[in-house]
């Protein structure tokens, strides 16, 4: 089965760069509001994303500087999608190794499988530190979107 390209799961409207937030809650809320704005989830999901960190701790900070904010598949998820919140100034999530966070990627999935290949592709792109630096340095959402589409095709 062919899965949707990242450019569709992460449209330019779901990308914000140089976002100003006060703390990790603000960072997660921003990534969640982008999911709401693009019709991926309801407001309930944003609350669930915050609760996930309250419950399990900042384990969502999966690599230095990057958090993958998400909650479980639930009725609050309308379709599978991603969001991208690049922060103007990094915030601490309380992670022992990977703080501070510059980028929060929001993820909502309708089930455990439908998005896995797209997410793996995104992980491969971000695992390349040079690419990640270039993406983080992008000042406009259009730039981030175009770079991801370009990397995915290469």
């Amino acid at each position, binding site marked *: 089965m062919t899965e949707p390209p990242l450019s569709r799961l992460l449209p330019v409207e779901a990308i914000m760069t140089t976002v100003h937030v006060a703390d990790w809650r603000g960072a997660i809320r921003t990534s969640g509001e982008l999911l709401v704005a693009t019709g991926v989830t309801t407001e309930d999901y944003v609350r669930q994303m915050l609760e996930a960190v309250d419950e399990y701790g900042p384990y969502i900070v*999966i690599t230095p500087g990057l958090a993958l904010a998400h909650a479980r598949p639930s009725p609050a998820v309308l379709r599978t999608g991603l969001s991208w919140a690049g922060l103007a100034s990094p915030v601490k999530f309380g992670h022992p190794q990977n703080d501070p966070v510059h980028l929060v990627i929001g993820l909502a999935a309708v089930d*455990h499988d439908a998005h896995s290949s797209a997410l793996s592709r995104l992980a491969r792109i971000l695992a390349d530190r040079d690419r990640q630096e270039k993406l983080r340095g992008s000042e406009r959402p259009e730039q981030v979107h175009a770079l991801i589409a370009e990397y995915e095709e290469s």
Partner: protein
Amino acid sequence: MKILAVCGMGIGTSVILTGNIEKAAHDLGLDAEIEVADIWTARGAAAGADVVMTSGELAAELGDVGVPVAVIDDFLDGDEVRARLATAVGR
């Protein structure tokens, strides 16, 4: 051997980790079956696995499960995942 990838929700971190575990197992020449479990089901599932791989925080939450637990700091770092898996299986 069976490798259990544990995360909080079963949709995000574990998906990323699974891809790197597959690569690591292949590099180490291990015949591995990888299963994903969220933290709720992990305690029961761990008993049937040979190795558990997860983040430091979830490892602490999990406690002693009777099999080696490999802690991963950087989920995007394939080299780290391979090194931690190698140590856990004694290679």
